[in-house]
């Protein structure tokens, strides 16, 4: 900024002859002028209103919320009693919403950083922000002949359907580069896509009907606490609960049988069980004959390659346990398996999920109430995606969007050529904190001409941006939300006025579009006006109406609604695979370079230099980098730790609470040790979270190792977060 005013001592003390009667907008004492204040217009009684909201976090539970607003201030949030999944309860994170929206540290205005990373920010108007961004877009287009040098990195910070308008905005300017894939669940989704045609689970409320339930590498007590109620309810009704996990989680502590498995060997266990089921003829031949493809080949693979003894050796689970579990699973009907996202974050994660799916298939547990191989569902996501579906402007250059892997974002940005990537738009994401190989991501940011980030709070990504745009929280804007797990549809009403100058991402898109068209007519196809509620309405289509049994989306203003159909996955036996059957043999898998059958892929092993596997599991007081930074959470726990078995601690001479350095060839973190027998002796555990004011991030040590699957359904392979080998030493 130029030196606009230089008030020197001399100029100030100069005894001016001019009498200034009024000071700018503030008038004089005799002629007071309001600026930020105004006379009360009407004697309004301070009112208390209730609104329907929906939690937009990337979470199984996607709760239906009822918020209380007193005189325009959000004072309380509760779970909606109208949803039989939320059941009037929220989780610890949800109950903290009243705090997070009212932090004085929210990003309040569009701001521009003089030098990236310098911390020298100046406030700009929205118009200035749009102008600068629009000019850069147009300049890039002119220089490179397309908008491909512009890269979008957006994911799940806010899963509200309208937020796909961000993708829409980028589409509306032309072909761009997109960070695609998801860091979270791709290997499992691909596995289920090869097996079933897509990922599709029973209504989690149906868990109560299971008589035998295996929770395999999931921790609903932390990550889906509302489901945990149904698990407990099932147990109450006589269901046996088995939890398979390298960590004795809080979910595992509720189990009738807990099995500590060697990480990444889940497929070996499933295949070993399958072999036992085969040998003892406990499989459902009838179901297989009618509904599956490749059973013969699969059985022959089992006979040739798999033994229970081998599985016992691989997994560390005694042969007798595997056999009895296989027998119980195959003979107790219905039997349900919940496949977690944790167990597929390995280089063999996809294959392992396929092996577990196969278990459910050969025992005929697919398509049954109380049964199934539950991973996720995308059934309730059939929106119109009005905000997302934008036309590309004519002659904007390039043939199509360029896709790069979100899970190796830094390196792929740096490697992109012809044209190189010059501008980034980041939304609903904090890649510098959450991506693996932090140092490489930083380098990618340094190579940009312009980085625009839309966020609510300062974080390490905003720090490396040129322009930051303040966005609304879920309570400040209308929207609509569904879950990838349960079958409820919740409208999100605007409960409070947006604070400061925060705007919804769709509003930003509309206004940016207006600016682009002002500078170059026709350069952007995104609509330039529209009421946000109307935008929400346009996200609906007839299919959704039919699925939820409503005539119009406004019926959701009475409360959340559950899907009327499709609550038991694959009940009709019509699979979405090329053959229309459950594919134990998948040619589609072959196309993507995998063996067509669910087979065992050797797990990664630790080495002498880095002898321990670090599992960076989710944390109960946060989701990724969200929530743990809040004061209410800090009051419960503000100390990340490194969990290790006493055997490990002894071996390295570490005592409880002593600081320990955990490191590998790409980075290190220092954390206090927590010695516990709840973790197995071949791992250490750090729960991934962002603590306010603490420079501890497990991702400093996480390499961008891809999982085996993910490319087909999500565009990029997943991340093998749990194949992170480290060494530890006492500091």
């Amino acid at each position: 900024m130029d030196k606009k005013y230089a008030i020197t001592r001399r100029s100030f003390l100069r005894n001016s002859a001019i009498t200034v009667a009024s000071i700018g907008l503030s008038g004089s004492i005799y002629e007071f002028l309001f600026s930020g204040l105004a006379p009360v217009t009407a004697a309004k009684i301070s009112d208390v209103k209730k609104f329907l909201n929906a939690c937009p976090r990337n979470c199984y539970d996607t709760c239906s919320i009822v918020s209380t607003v007193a005189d325009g201030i959000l004072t309380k949030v509760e779970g909606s009693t109208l949803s039989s999944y939320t059941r009037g309860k929220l989780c610890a994170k949800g109950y903290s919403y009243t705090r997070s929206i009212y932090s004085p540290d929210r990003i309040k205005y569009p701001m521009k950083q003089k030098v990236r990373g310098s911390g020298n920010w100046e406030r700009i108007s929205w118009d200035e922000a749009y102008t600068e961004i629009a000019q850069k877009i147009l300049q890039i287009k002119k220089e490179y002949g397309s908008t491909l040098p512009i890269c979008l990195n957006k994911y799940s910070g806010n899963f509200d359907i309208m937020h796909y308008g961000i993708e829409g905005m980028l589409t509306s300017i032309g072909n761009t580069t997109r960070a695609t894939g998801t860091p979270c669940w791709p290997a499992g989704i691909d596995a289920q896509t090869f097996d079933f045609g897509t990922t599709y689970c029973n209504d989690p409320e149906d868990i109560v009907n299971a008589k035998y339930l295996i929770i395999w590498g999931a921790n609903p007590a932390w990550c889906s606490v509302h489901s945990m109620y149904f698990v407990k309810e099932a147990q109450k009704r006589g269901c046996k609960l088995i939890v398979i996990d390298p960590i004795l989680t809080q979910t595992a502590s509720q189990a009738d049988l807990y099995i500590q498995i060697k990480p990444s060997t889940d497929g070996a266990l499933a295949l070993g069980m399958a072999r036992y089921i085969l040998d003892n003829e406990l499989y459902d031949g009838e179901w297989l004959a009618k509904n599956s493809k490749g059973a013969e080949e699969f059985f022959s693979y089992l006979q040739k390659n798999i033994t229970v003894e081998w599985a016992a050796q691989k997994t560390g689970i005694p042969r007798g346990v595997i056999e009895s579990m296989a027998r119980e699973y195959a003979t107790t009907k219905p039997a349900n398996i919940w496949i977690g996202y944790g167990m597929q974050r390995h280089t063999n994660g996809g294959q392992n999920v396929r092996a577990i799916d196969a278990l459910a298939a050969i025992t005929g547990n697919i398509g049954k109430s109380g049964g199934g191989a539950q991973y996720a569902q995308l059934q309730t996501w059939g929106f119109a995606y009005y905000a997302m579906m934008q036309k590309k402007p004519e002659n904007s250059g390039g043939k199509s969007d360029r896709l790069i892997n979100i899970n190796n974002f830094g390196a792929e940005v740096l490697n992109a050529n012809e044209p190189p990537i010059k501008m980034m738009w980041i939304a609903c994401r904090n890649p510098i904190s959450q991506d693996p190989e932090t140092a490489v991501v930083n380098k990618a940011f340094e190579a940009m001409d312009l980085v625009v980030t839309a966020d609510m709070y300062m974080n390490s990504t905003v720090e490396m941006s040129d322009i930051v745009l303040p966005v609304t929280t879920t309570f400040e804007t209308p929207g609509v939300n569904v879950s990838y797990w349960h079958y409820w549809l919740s409208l999100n009403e605007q409960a409070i006025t947006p604070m400061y100058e925060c705007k919804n991402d769709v509003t930003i898109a509309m206004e940016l579009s207006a600016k682009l068209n002002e500078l170059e007519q026709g350069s952007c196809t995104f609509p330039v006006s529209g009421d946000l509620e109307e935008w929400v309405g346009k996200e609906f289509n007839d299919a959704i109406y039919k699925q939820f049994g409503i005539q119009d989306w406004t019926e959701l203003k009475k409360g959340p609604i559950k899907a009327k159909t499709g609550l038991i996955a694959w009940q009709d036996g019509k699979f979405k695979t090329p053959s229309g059957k459950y594919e134990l043999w998948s040619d589609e898998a072959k196309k993507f370079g995998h063996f067509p059958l669910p087979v065992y892929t050797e797990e990664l092993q630790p080495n002498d230099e880095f002898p321990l596997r670090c599992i960076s599991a989710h944390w109960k007081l946060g989701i990724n980098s969200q929530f743990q930074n809040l004061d209410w959470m800090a009051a419960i726990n503000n100390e990340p730790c490194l969990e290790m078995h006493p055997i490990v601690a002894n071996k390295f001479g570490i005592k409880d609470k002593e600081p320990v350095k955990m490191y590998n060839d790409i980075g290190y973190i220092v954390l206090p040790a927590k010695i516990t027998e709840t973790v197995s002796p071949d791992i250490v555990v750090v729960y991934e979270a962002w603590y306010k004011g603490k420079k501890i991030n497990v991702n400093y040590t996480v390499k961008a190792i891809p999982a085996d699957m993910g490319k087909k359904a999500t565009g990029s392979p997943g991340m093998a977060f749990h194949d992170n080998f480290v060494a530890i030493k006492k500091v």
Partner: protein
Amino acid sequence: MKKAFVVKSDRCVGCHACEMACKNEYQLEATIRWRKVYQLPENEFGVPSRHFASLACNHCENPACLAACPAKAYTKREDGIVIHHTERCIGCKMCMMACPYKVPVFNEKIKKVEKCHMCADKQDRGEKPACVAGCPMEALEIVDLDDTNLANMRSFLPGFPDIAITKPTTRFITPNLGIQVRGNNNG
């Protein structure tokens, strides 16, 4: 009538929703926790486990806070709820010293003590306390000890201070322990 919290440690998964529901209901200062989820010692029940007990005020039959308070800031209602009356509190912290359960906490901002009142007002309106209503696992309940079958409940869990001191009304259901199979995976 003797109203009491039942803490079902067989259902509690330690998710902290109860304590956050309480904070949300009363918009408590961050460091003040009327309800607290305690992790029970890992090896308390023979095999390692992650079990919990969620405690707020135990609304004792002989409340030590009430006896020790010089300002008569505490009363015990007929239904057994021990109420701390902020307006009478002089901030002497005697109750904090007397309570074996560390229930009363000092609010540095208002320089007075505060604690759980079992949502007495809500209960008078026929509603459940915020923590009970907010627990996703239904691991908390209010019962009338005079009118409840206590056969499956205990008055204490290991590690809970001597109940002879104040006769807390809180009742516990002990955790269930499953079978654990831990293989020969010694790294």
